[in-house]
């Protein structure tokens, strides 16, 4: 396989193709007949998916840095470039995005009845944007893609959504835009700083990593970035847009939202927060705050989820709980924690995406999502019940499913550094059963009473084609996550090492030493420039 990919020069053009193929698809979808739009969009997304699978072989698992890099100037005057690349952190995010998009499109065949061409065009635009987010190695480009995801999502919720769709769409938009504008300010500050210190304008991620920042600066910039990403994740208490957006969004919108858009937040943590601001990222106050918020997210939203009458809202809240495990894993700042967080991201993408798809199928049959309306569905739809139970179990982290591996590693990693926090978070395991099992029971078990429920059809061929790969992945990753873990490990280790390199400073913060401004650097003088690299560490010594 590797040889085949090499012979077609795969690694030179694959990332570009993954970003631009969906964009080409938009034209195609808008051009064909309304009735064919969904078929065309689905097969087009399958092509993109197939293309992205090649990354598995093309990726070199021994390297921690960016791979398959390519760059071209975009706005040279400002140092903005169009540059792409992937590493172990983004590899699976890209594959998750293309996979989820295909499944979401396939799952929307019945759900979307009006303005189909526009809908599928937006789905493809969304795909291009999220893939762009994960492969961009230029911070400006990243920001453009990051914001671009809002546009199609806004319309998907606002046009094809439920009754309160306008409220939900605006809330979603404003919430996230609010966060990301602060990030834009921080990015510009970084740019300005880089220009002053390095002597040339640049937005390149690799260059910005070289910019020395004092501890105080790091804390401010960290806060701005963290706010933007925390809204996306979402971290408690910035989560209230999520239930509304999920409940109002059409099924495919919910799937992409849960499977991919939330991951952009935690991806941002890993890609930007930790490497760019290592000193701030291990400031005890920062770490404690993030960990505590993560734990609150796990326990609190589990409780809130448990009493929801609306099945979709329940699942939406569980997303916050799951992402809490990721936050925990990331800010544990251990290899296990980070790897666990990444697996939770993948696992949550698959299992929660699948839950939303299943709930969408249920809604198509019954036109309600109120849990109490159902009962005994397993009698008339055994395949449906089986798929749902498997997915629910993966979601609550039963060993042998992907959810367990992620949560276990995230908790293990957290326990290494913060046992008390990890202990509290482990209680989430109980509450996961507390919110999920009653829902499964009420919907699928108990007595089959009403005629409406009796008429519910089992999964059809198309729906089985959606659920089969999802369920297979949940179980496969549960039993053999090592191939994933070994591809992530070098990149994760690089992040941890970068943070630890700034660890000397960390010790100083703890002992109460105040930060001092970085010494002035003359960009003409290479000696001071080299010193700048270690400036943040040097803070500690003074």
């Amino acid at each position, binding site marked *: 396989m590797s040889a085949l990919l090499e012979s077609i020069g795969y690694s030179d053009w694959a990332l570009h193709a993954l970003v631009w193929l969906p964009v080409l698809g938009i034209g195609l979808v808008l051009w064909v007949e309304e009735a064919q739009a969904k078929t065309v969009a689905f097969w087009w997304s399958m092509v993109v998916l197939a293309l992205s699978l090649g990354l598995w072989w093309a990726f070199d698992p021994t390297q921690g840095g960016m791979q398959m890099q390519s760059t071209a100037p975009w706005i040279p005057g400002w140092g903005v470039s169009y540059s792409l690349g992937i590493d172990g952190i983004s590899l699976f995010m890209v594959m998750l995005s293309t996979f989820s998009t295909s499944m979401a499109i396939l799952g929307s065949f019945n759900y979307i009845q009006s303005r189909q061409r526009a809908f599928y065009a937006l789905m493809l635009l969304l795909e291009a944007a999220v893939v762009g987010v994960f492969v961009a190695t230029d911070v400006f480009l990243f920001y453009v893609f990051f914001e671009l995801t809002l546009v199609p999502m806004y319309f998907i919720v606002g046009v094809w959504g439920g009754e309160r769709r306008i409220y939900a769409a605006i809330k979603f938009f404003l919430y996230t835009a609010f966060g990301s504008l602060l990030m834009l300010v921080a990015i510009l500050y970084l740019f300005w700083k880089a220009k002053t210190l390095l002597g040339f304008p640049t937005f390149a991620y690799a260059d910005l990593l070289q910019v020395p920042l004092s501890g105080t600066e790091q804390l401010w910039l960290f806060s701005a970035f963290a706010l933007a990403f925390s809204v996306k994740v979402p971290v408690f208490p910035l989560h209230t847009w999520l239930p509304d957006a999920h409940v109002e969004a059409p099924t495919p919108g919910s799937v992409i939202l849960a499977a991919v858009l939330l991951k952009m937040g935690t991806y941002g943590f890993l890609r930007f927060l930790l490497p760019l601001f290592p000193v701030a990222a291990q400031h005890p106050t920062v770490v404690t705050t993030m960990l505590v918020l993560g734990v609150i997210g796990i326990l609190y939203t589990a409780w809130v989820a448990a009493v929801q009458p609306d099945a979709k809202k329940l699942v939406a809240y569980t997303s916050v709980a799951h992402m809490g495990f990721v936050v925990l894993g990331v800010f544990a700042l251990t290899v296990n924690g980070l790897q666990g967080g990444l697996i939770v991201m993948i696992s949550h993408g698959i299992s929660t995406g699948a839950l939303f798809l299943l709930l969408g199928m249920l809604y198509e049959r019954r036109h309600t999502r109120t849990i109490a309306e159902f009962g005994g569905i397993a009698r008339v739809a055994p395949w449906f019940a089986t798929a749902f139970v498997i997915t629910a179990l993966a979601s609550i982290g039963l060993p042998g499913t992907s959810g367990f591996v992620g949560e276990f590693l995230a908790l293990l990693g957290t326990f290494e550094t913060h046992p008390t926090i990890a202990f509290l978070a482990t209680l989430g395991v109980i509450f996961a059963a507390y919110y999920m099992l009653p829902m499964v029971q009420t919907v699928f078990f108990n007595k089959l009473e009403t005629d409406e429920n009796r008429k519910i059809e089992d999964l059809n061929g198309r729906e089985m084609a959606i659920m089969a790969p999802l369920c297979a992945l949940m179980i496969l990753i549960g*039993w053999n996550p090592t191939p994933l873990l070994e591809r992530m490990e070098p990149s994760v280790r690089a992040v941890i090492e970068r943070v630890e390199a700034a660890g000397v400073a960390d010790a100083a913060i703890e002992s109460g030493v105040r930060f001092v401004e970085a010494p002035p650097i003359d960009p003409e003088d290479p000696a001071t420039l080299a010193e700048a690299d270690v400036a943040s560490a040097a803070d500690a010594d003074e």
Partner: protein
Amino acid sequence: MSAVIAPVIALAQGGGQAAAEAAHFEPFLPGLVVLLPLLGFVLNGILALRHGRDSAAAVRRGEELDLGDRASRPATHTLPTWIGPGVLGAAFVITLVNFARMFGADLEAPVIVHYWTWIATGTFTVEAALQLDQLSMIMMMVVTGVGFLIHVFSVGYMRDDAGYPRYFAYLNLFVFFMLVLVMGSSYALMFVGWEGVGLCSYLLIGYWFSDREKSDAGKKAFIVNRIGDVGFLIAMFLLFRAFGTVDFVPVFAEAETLVYAGGLVTAITLFFFLGAVGKSAQIPLHIWLPDAMAGPTPVSALIHAATMVTAGVYLVARSSVLFALAPLSSAVVAGIGVLTALFAATIALKQNDIKKVLAYSTVSQLGYMFVGVGVGAYAAGVFHLMTHAFFKALLFLGSGAVIHAMHDAYHSTHSHEDAQDMRNMGGLKTYMPITWATMWIATLAISGIWPFAGFFSKDEIIWQTAAFGGAENAPYAALYSVYWIVALAAAMLTAFYMTRMMVMTFHGENRTGAEESKHLHEAPAVMWVPLAVLAVLSVFGGWINVPEAIQTSWVGLFGALPTGEWLHHWLEPLTAQAHHIQEANLGELAHSAPFGGGEVLWATISTAAAAVVVFLSIRFVGGQKTVPVAQDETAPSGFGAVLLNKYYVDEFYDRFVVQPIVRASRFCWKTIDSLVIDGAVNAVGLVAKAFGWGVSMFQTGSVNTYAFILTVGVLVILGVAVL
């Protein structure tokens, strides 16, 4: 699954020599033991789904066939009948081969068969590997052997059930996870089995899911079990922090670097014990097991008596080294065990549901096992686990045969009487003699009457408890005296309530009803043969571990048995380290009976006392007048009511745990989430709106106003510029 069967790696605790010795033991396809039940699950699962689709179509057409309805007998019976028990039989045969090989090999160190790397993050590695040693071998024998018998029994018991293939699918999956639990080479892998069996327990308790009560019971079991699972997880995290691994062999090899009775090892063991408390239904997490009786009776026999619930005991026995290092934890284990033994036994005194009696009896007997492993008598605990698997599985299957007959009887007249209530039984001896005889054997065994299996295992536990308290430096010595006295009292209660159950079920007048009693019948051969096999095991199972001290007396048939304390010696390689730790810290255990007088005398007294209680119980219960449920108007009062209502523990939890959490959840949702957080968000929006509204007041729409303001503005600016 790239299950390339790797060459056997003998991980040696004692260096190269042990490795060489261990090499004598060649495992025979151990992976297949695990894989066969999984295969059975997959095949039966496919059959179940295909069958489910057909029955779903019938349900949709309006042909209401309730699950468990005898009228519908699907044609898809033949394959599951062969696959379900078949895979178990094959697994049992493979286990026997392995046992025979290990028996001859004199294995010193565990043999680990590696398959693939399950999790590897760079700093944490768990292999998907099976560990074969003396302890896992005993467990494998029990799981596949007793499991096979119960599968066979199920063929008869579940014959008329609408979900027959689904039942066998779940049952096979359970055995798969149980084998992972006992064969896994690390705590992490054990945890996979640990939660997996919990899942199967959930599915099987709620097997007749149309009944709300039954699916509630399944849910309750799962959630309560998860409370324990948290303990297991935390213990694993602590282990990882201490040793950087959760594999058995390296952990136990390095365990002694931990401080004896230190905080860390105490915390690890207490958290593990929390897991055990959940899984093995000990106080305070015992509440799920009686409810779990909602499942089909063979399930109760397999999962909730013979195998799954004993996983906690297995866990403590497996971690013997750690528990030996933590005397406080051991005291807690024994204390909870003895408390549970007594507590559950008292509840069992007043229950009328035959399965509830057995459920509380199981809880009580599990308590004994914990006493055993809590006082460092790990072999004794495992011994009782094994004998209990025989006689309690027998009791459950026997009760299943009774319920089966009762159900048929009531079905014939379309009566809706309770087929499980002993007040509706009585005099069944004449209708089902084989069941009666085998269940009496099991009752005598559990009551601790010589020469049945329970006598040896239970007496050994009580004896070891007393001996532990008498050790030179025993911590909390006085406590252990209380323990063994309470354990003895609970044993007497056991004899009483078990005899009561037998008398109410099989003796006296029949109370089923004149018409119904004509339809009472003995179980078919497919059901009574497993009963007979288990009865044989219940009689002779205890003889593998006759204490050497009494081997030559009448208790040990004057030395006629080929070996004394065989199980002790068999498990020696695994328990030696723990015993070594104990002896180093506690000094020599007092192996004599507490009041002197010799072991033989005490054994005689013990069995005589149990016999007296059985006799008294027969007289007392036989003398009482029992009336069928329909005519029973007496409500128990006083302490009897407390016992009947299980000390109101469920009510207590509902009131002080469940309801507060639900209320807090609602508070979080309605108040914090909707009101405070979303309120704040909407408030920000409102402020912006209000500001915009205020400023829009200038927007009069009148051209003149605009012109006037413009002019004034220009004049003001000019004025400022000039001045």
